[in-house]
Structures are given as C-alpha cells and as structure tokens.
C-alpha cells in the first residue's frame, strides 16, 4: 500500500489534454517515474510523477478537481 501525494496546490488533471486518454487507467500498474497526472497552478502545468511503484492505482481525486498541497492523489497496492 502506497500513496501518491500532490506536491502543489492547484487543479488535478488525469490526461495531458481533454481529447487524450488518461496517463493511467483505473487499476493500472505504476513504475517509479511514471507520469500519473498534471497539476495546474496559476495556468502553468506540472507533471506529477510517481516516486513509488505499485499496482492497481486508485485515484482519490477526480479529473479537473481542486487539490491542496500534500493531498492524496492516488493509492497503490
């Protein structure tokens, strides 16, 4: 069990753009360094990379939802 936390406050996006598939589908496996989403802070976009590996990713935040710094973005097995 591991968690991916948001390093920044802002708006969370699961895909690079609305017409693209999400970086990680629900339940997907994650390797260290994989991009799992974007945080938009004041109109600039920051890739969120996993610092831990795991399987069965479950997102705690929906696409386009606001997050605070330190909030849990996703849980991993």
């Amino acid at each position, binding site marked *: 069990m591991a968690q991916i936390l948001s390093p*920044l*406050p*802002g*708006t969370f996006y699961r895909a690079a753009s609305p017409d693209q598939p999400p970086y990680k589908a629900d339940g997907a496996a994650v390797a260290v360094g994989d991009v799992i989403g974007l945080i*938009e*802070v*004041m*109109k*600039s976009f920051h890739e969120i990379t996993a610092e831990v590996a795991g399987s069965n990713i479950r997102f705690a935040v929906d696409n*386009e*939802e*606001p997050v605070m710094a330190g909030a849990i973005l996703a849980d991993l097995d």
Partner: protein
Amino acid sequence: MLKKLLIANRGEIAVRIIRAARDLGIATVAVHSAADTEALHVQLADEAVNIGPPAAKKSYLNMAAILQAATDTGCDSIHPGYGFLAENAEFADAVAAAGLAFVGPSGDAIRLMGDKVSARSAAHAAGVPVVPGSTGRVAGIEAARHVLIDTGFPVMIKAAAGGGGRGIRIAQNLTEFETAFPQAEAEALAAFGDGGLYMERVIGRARHIEVQILGDGNDAIHLCERECSLQRRRQKVWEEAPSSALSDKLRDQLCASAVALARAVGYSGAGTVEYLYDDAADQFYFIEMNTRIQVEHPVTEMITGVDLVAEGLRIAGGEPLRLAQRDITPRGHAIEVRINAEDPSRDFAPFPGTVGALRVPGGPGVRFDSMLYPGYQVPPFYDSLLAKLIVHAETRDAAIARLVRALSELQIDGMKTTKPLFQALAADPAVQAGAVHTRWLEGWLTENASRLSAAES
C-alpha cells in the same frame, strides 16, 4: 446610463471595474467561484453571487451560471473584464440575446477580429500595414510559391485554425519550404481538422507597440500608443506610454491607422490595435486587435487623464463618445509593472500563498491596482497577477526613478513575487536607454536570472 452591472471576472480587474462603476453611480454585482469567497471584489461589490466550483471552466467560464446570476440580481449589463469570456463572441451574443448590455463590442466584431485571417483582411482593407504574406488562406503549394515573392525568407507557415503558438513552422529557404509546407498542411489537418494555412514574413527584431482606441459604433478616437516590448514567453511584464521609439510622424500614422480600422469595423467600447514595429526598417505592421480592456490600460489613463473603464461603461449605456480627438492631450510618461505571484529566482515558478504584512507604495504619480489585503490567500486556480504598480512622471527617466522609489516601498510578506525582476530591470542600462525588443528580456534572463534572488525584496 447603466443602472446595475455584473462583473464577470475576478482579481484586480474586477476591483478596477467595481470602482469605475461606483464612481458613475452604477450598482455592482460580483460573481465568484467557491475559491474566491473572501476575494476583495466580493467584499467591495454591492452584491455577490457564487457561480460554481474553483475550476474556471465551472465558474468564471460558465456562461449559463453568469447569465442566470445577472437575471436573478436584476442587472442590466455585464462587464467581462479581460481573459475568461472577454473575447468570446458567443458570450457577447448571449448577453445581448438576454436583453442585457455587453460592455464591449458586438459578437460580430469580436468574431471578425478573433479570426487571424479575417482580422488581417479587415486591417488590410482599412489601409493598415500588415506583415507581408498571403491574403487569407493559401490554396495549395503552387499558390504558396507565389506568396514567397512578397514574403521572402525566413517565412512563417501558420495553421489558420491554430493558436497560442501551435501549428507554426518557419522555413529559412526554398528547400526547407518545399518540405515544411506539406508537413504543416498534414499537421494542421490532424491537429485542428482544418488543413488551411497562411504565410507571413518573419519579422526578426521588433518592438511591440499598441494603440488604445475608444469607439461608440459610429466614430472612434485613439488615446495614443503603449509600448510593451519587455515580454517573457509572449507575456508582457512591463508596459509604457508613450513609446520612446517612435518619431512624431510615425506615431501619427500608427494611431491614425488604428482609428481607421476601428471605424471600418464599427467598433464599440475600448479596444487595442497591436503592432510590431521594426525600428531598423522604420516599419510597423498590424498583428491583431484585442477587443477588450487590457491589463496595461492604466498607463494610458495616466498620460491622458481619461478613465477608460468608465468611458466603456458610458458607451455600453448608449452614450456617444464624449471625447473628440482634440480632447486627447498626452502628458508625461507612465510605466506599469506586473507584480506576479512567481519566484523569479526559480524560473518564475508560481507561488500561491498567504499575504502577510502588506505595505503599498503611494505618493505623487503612483498608482497600485490590486486585489491584495493582509491575510489574503492567493488561490492556485487562476493567473498569477497580484498587482499592477503604475508610475507617472514628466519624463521617462523620471518615471523610472519613481518606479525604483515605489518598488522600494512595496512589501508583500509571505509571497514570492516578481518585484526583484523589476528592480533589476530598472537598473539595467538597456532598459534605461529603451534599447529593447520583444525577445530582449528572455536573453537578459538567461544572463541575469541568478541575480534575481528574493534577498532584494
């Protein structure tokens, strides 16, 4: 005259518009997202309506929620500010269809100027010099080769449906062009579903100069020019009025061309015609028209004494232009700098945070347009502009000295801001001499970024 105005915006511009409306005796309704409940514009307006969640798409860009708020509160007008829905023709049409006055031009004028190809054609037809290039879309590579006679090299190939720098290719010579054109066509089709292309000569080193206009749908006047050559990633950071680069003769031509364009399109409200000025060749070229009040409008207000937001409200209320061209007499020199919540020592990383102690500059010739107050939590969801510091003095040199003085007074505890950038720029010989162009600042930053530590602020 308008009676009750909804301000479809946030931040310093919402505050600015509320102030102008109140000066004119117009009641104000602020709208806000769930993240802006404590915002200054909400505190200052007569009424406030929560229009949705923090994400701009669900609040400040939510046309239905904004129109509903206007109807529910009995407004007769909507001011879009800048950004968000300000240049959205569909919104302007919807406001008009709801029987409300839109503070700005018609949806048709926004549409005409919002499309790069039609804006360029309108400018050309009004006698405004445009960058040498294709007249509208290019019909295939054979026609494109003929356009090269006018443009020469380097030439820019742009997707007609593109925007924000996407879908642009530059060819340095014919060989590159023969490869780049079909590629650009295929890319444009794939990216935008529209393979239409147009072509323009690449203007190498140029200044950004723009003309403020006011129109009432029948007539138009100009309020002189601004220069905004100091830009980072195509965002203006420091703006001045007037430009120190223009001769009186060229200034007259430039301003007259902006008025001709505004008249030709029946422009109503405040607008800006933007140009590139190649000072080596002493040539100016139309880039685009912004159909809204701009961030940097205060420098024009400082040198002309005209309240542009108030004039826009009067025009939207049905009054004809109150000012004739002969009433506009610029005086002195004004400079605006954008105090952003960004850390210039860390490549301008955004810095949402909470404002601690706040000391605002003042005294003669100083204006501070902002939504800050002590304890304000700057939300991460919107742009990073915190404040605009504007100074006015008799000469450009005196304005720079006054800027340095005002920056030394400014203190925003708890935040990283762009203040150290402006302290360094004000001390730079090239800035002091006005010897800059639109790509100057990015070069300067690669040399000087390490000096921009917060230690100075």
